Each structure stands twice: as C-alpha cells, then as structure tokens.
C-alpha cells in the first residue's frame, strides 16, 4: 500500500501509542473495580493499532501471530469457564480461596477495592481483552491492506485494473 503520512503524524503516533496501550491494559486489569473491562480495554488497544496502520500503512508480517493470540485467548477463556465443571460451567470457583485473585473486599458496601479480588472474573477479563484486541487489530489490518483483495495468482483480472 502506497501511503505516506507526514513526519508529524508519525511522531504523534509514536508518542500516543504507548499511553493508549497502557490505558487499555489498565481498563482490562481494573475491569472488576472501575468502569471498563475486557471489551473496552481490547477495543482501546485495537484503536492504537488503527493509529499505527494509518500512520505507517502496515503492521508488518504479524497476521499469523495475531490470529494465534486470538485463538489462544479464546481457548483459555473457554477452559477457565469449563474448569468449574465440578459444580457447573462458569461457576466462580476461585473467589474467596485466597489464591491470587481470590482475595476478598475489605468490607461490603462502597469501597475502593483491590485488584486481587474477583476470582475467575479477572482472568476472564484478561482473556477477553487479549482476544478482542487481537481480533480487532486483525480485522483492521485485513481491511486496510486494500482488503487483501488481490488478483488471482495466475490470471490477470480484466476490470478492476486501473481503477483508483
């Protein structure tokens, strides 16, 4: 894709990408305490991908990596859900056990909360965040490189050749 952006755009992108990603990670990790969660954080991270694509035109050759990350995130999500099968699927079996993320809130009612509470909810947030970020980045990447709408390898297409 021939796509040149000015140096200003590239510099601003370089500066902005890291804070956006950190903000996304914050949203994911604090999803059970403050507004936010896996979807929102993942979408925010993916918007940094959009910025990178607009500034630089490509993400390099990471399509397979992104696709694998997405599948791994979902696999772990469904496994976490199915590990509760001793009771039922999606049973929150970690909460209150003291295991990391199994802590308890200081008192029930209004409180600032701790990050190590929530049981499986925190893990699921993390997995969904990973999945959503990878999936949305992949969609953006696929659609940006002119959709990957390429000519058939052997034949030359007659119509769409010289257009725009």
């Amino acid at each position, binding site marked *: 894709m021939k796509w040149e952006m000015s140096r200003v755009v590239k510099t601003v992108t370089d500066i902005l990408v890291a804070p956006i990603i950190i903000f996304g990670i914050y949203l994911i990790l604090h999803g059970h305490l403050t507004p936010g969660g896996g*979807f929102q954080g993942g979408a925010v991270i993916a918007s940094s991908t959009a910025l990178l694509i607009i500034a630089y035109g490509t993400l390099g050759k990471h399509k397979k990596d992104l696709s694998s990350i997405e599948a791994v995130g979902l696999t772990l999500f469904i496994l976490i859900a199915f590990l509760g099968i001793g009771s039922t699927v999606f049973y929150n079996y970690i909460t209150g056990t003291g295991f990391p993320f199994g802590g308890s809130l200081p008192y029930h009612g209004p409180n600032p909360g701790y990050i190590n509470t929530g049981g499986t909810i925190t893990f699921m947030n993390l997995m969904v965040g990973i999945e959503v970020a990878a999936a949305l980045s992949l969609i953006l990447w696929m659609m940006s490189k002119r*959709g990957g709408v390429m000519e058939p390898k052997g034949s030359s*297409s007659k119509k769409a050749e010289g257009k725009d």
Partner: protein
Amino acid sequence: MSWESFVMMMPYITVVILMAIGLYTVLFKKNLIKIIMGIAIMQNGANLFLVSLAYRRGYIAPIFTSAESTDMVMPTPHALTLTSIVIGLATTALMLSLTMMIKKHYDSINTEDMRRCKE
C-alpha cells in the same frame, strides 16, 4: 400526552426514529455501503433502547464506589448492550469485507448490479 411525559418518553421515541431511519436506508438505498451504514444506525438505536430500559431516575452507575446497592441503575441491560455493541462491530466488519469482494467481482457496489442470483 403532556409535555412532561413527552420529555420522559423522548429516549424511546428517539430509539424508534433511529430504527426507522436505519430501516429506511436498508430498504430504499441502492448503495451497499449506505445499506450497511443503515444497519449501523439500527444497531445504535437498539443499544440506546437497552440502556434506556436500565435507567432509574436519580440512581447512580452500578459500580460500588460511593453509594449503597439500592441506589443503582439496572446492570443487566448494560451487559447486554456491551455484548450487542461488539456483535455489531463483528457483523459490520464481515459485511464490509463482503462488499469489498463484491466490488472486486462486479466492479460496482450498487444493488441493482448485484443480481446474478435470481429466479
């Protein structure tokens, strides 16, 4: 209907108007991208409807930071809306990529040209 109650019904009426605009676009526009935009407007309408259902006057967001549990708006529609927002993005992306393939094969994104399958 009094002015007060009209103002109170305003979110619902907006929802219906948004759905109407979206459906109008899907029905009568011939451009595929416009049709998909119409679907996106319908999605916005449906999401607004769900969130409006959750509202309880004078209550706060369903997050325990400052108030008691009885003073919060309803959480379930929020969860449903989150789900439907991401569903909307997924379907929109798939439809747009199909449109790109249509452009590639038919050299047009007009629905009148997209009629090889018929009868």
